């Protein structure tokens, strides 16, 4: 998709957006509030029309071939419901089947698959308004995929959900992508979602794309900070040994009673730290973790010119 600018009362909400997402890719769009994420999503889904430039999704321009485009895509907007409020979920699904013209066999296959994956069994015959948030979202997400769309846009799909449901939903999206090669474009403030799902990451700020590349690369370039959780008998001694070690960023007590050492792996490899400690104290457990995506992105923002955050 090549993409450009809509104007909003002379203020450019997004500007010079140029990117292309391939079929079957899972892309995550990251940005702070007001960065232009939702504008971008609205452009992609065809709700907003660009003032200049071209935008195609699967070969069609969303606002020119609206019906064709809408049939190929699915969307979940975390804060807006796509389903009908007062009737059982299955009735909503049946109506969607009619609207999107899904063949009965395909409908059944998909429904069975989604029901199994998202445990929709007891929910199908309940009116949407009686469901809890978690149950509602599971139904909404399944609804977006019912007509086997080529691309699905997810905007804050896990907002307000507990960790177990988040996990289920992430698994579901991953499986669908693997099985049907559905392109996924995800935008969310939950970086855990992005970390698990998106191999492709786009960072947007003030209406411009700052970064466009793979998650792996992002971690490589900005994820130099790693964390070691150390559980030992002599914490004071660990502290003494490491405090003068160059490349160590911080040594803090962690929630489980041990120490968490944050260090720059380009300056001192993990092995060296472990070596130093092992010789000094008796270690009961040790764990190495990559920095959370959050920290990596924060590093990225800090590296940007003009960043005041």
């Amino acid at each position, binding site marked *: 998709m090549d993409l450009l600018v809509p104007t909003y009362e002379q203020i450019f909400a997004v500007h010079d957006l140029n990117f292309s997402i391939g079929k079957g890719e899972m892309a995550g769009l990251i940005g702070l509030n007001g960065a232009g994420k939702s504008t971008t999503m*609205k452009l992609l889904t065809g709700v907003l*029309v660009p003032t200049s430039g071209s935008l195609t999704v699967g070969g069609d321009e969303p606002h020119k071939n*609206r*019906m*064709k485009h809408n049939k190929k895509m699915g969307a979940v907007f975390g804060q*807006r419901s796509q389903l*009908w409020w007062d009737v059982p979920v299955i009735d909503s699904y049946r*109506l969607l089947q009619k609207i*999107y013209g899904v063949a009965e066999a395909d409908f059944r296959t998909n429904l069975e698959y989604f029901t199994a994956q998202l445990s929709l069994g007891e929910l199908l015959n309940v009116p949407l308004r009686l469901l809890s948030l978690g149950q509602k979202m599971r139904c909404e997400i399944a609804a977006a995929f019912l007509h086997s769309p080529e691309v699905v846009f997810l905007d804050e799909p896990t907002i307000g959900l507990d960790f177990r449901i988040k996990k289920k939903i992430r698994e579901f999206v991953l499986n669908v992508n693997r099985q049907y090669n559905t392109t996924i474009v995800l935008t969310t403030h939950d970086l855990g979602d992005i970390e698990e799902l998106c191999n492709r990451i786009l960072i947007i700020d003030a209406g411009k794309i700052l970064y466009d590349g793979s998650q792996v690369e992002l971690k490589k370039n900005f994820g130099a900070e790693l964390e070691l959780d150390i559980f030992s008998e002599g914490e004071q001694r660990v502290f003494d040994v490491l405090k003068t070690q160059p490349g160590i960023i911080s040594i803090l007590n962690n929630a489980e009673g041990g120490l968490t050492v944050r260090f720059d792996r380009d300056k001192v490899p993990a092995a060296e730290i472990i070596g130093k400690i092992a010789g000094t104290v008796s270690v009961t457990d040790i764990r190495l973790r990559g920095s959370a995506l959050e920290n990596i992105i924060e590093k990225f923002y800090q590296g940007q010119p003009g960043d005041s955050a």
Partner: protein
Amino acid sequence: MRYLSLYWSFFAINLRTLYQYKADLVIGAIATLLTQLGGMAMLWLVATQISDLAGWSLRQLMLLYGLITLARAFDMIFFDNLHALGSEYVREGKLDVLLMRPLSPLFQLATAHIQQDGFGMLALGIALTAYAGVSLDLFASFHSIMLLLFFIINGALLISAITVLFSAAGFITANSHIILESVDSIADFAHYPRPVFPRWIGNLTTWVLPYAFISYYPASHLSGSLHVSLWLYPLITLAAWLAALIAWRAGIRHYSSTGS
């Protein structure tokens, strides 16, 4: 046609929803019935004082009243959701969901909700038209029955066009309800014979908001007093729908270029 079968599905859902709120259905329906009945009651009281109103007998007045009531009932039942365009769909952004489906947003908006209160009005409209029709011998010949149906159907379509047209204001003001209510007030004039009112009101309901073509001219035609070319009716209705669809097109374009 796809839209027809879809329409039936939407309607079925609406009926099921209605069924869940039975008490509301009764209260609301009674309320609208009584409100409209009031106007007719006033006419009836007048009829006890004088023999005819501007040459219209009570039966003829009932026919006129019944015709506009039927049209308004149709509009209320099937297009009432358009009142919510401005506040719910534009301001709150619910319109986005509609725009993402492969289906006309206007169709989706209209079918999203049935206003059950309208059934009270429908009952009154049917009662008045049927009673007046029988007393005026309108059901005597096939020709006059067809004519009656023609006027009723045309009236329903015309009034809906007016509603759709003015609802488009919601795209810009984020409040369609107020303007629709205001336009609706003018329709009150069309419950009574045009000659009762001064010229300017008559012109208002004929050339600006053509409500007179729903009740006054049809009723005149059916009672034999005034004949306007029958082609004029569908022509006006068509023109109204054209204007409505153009307004909507422009409204959606406006919504899609400024976001919310």
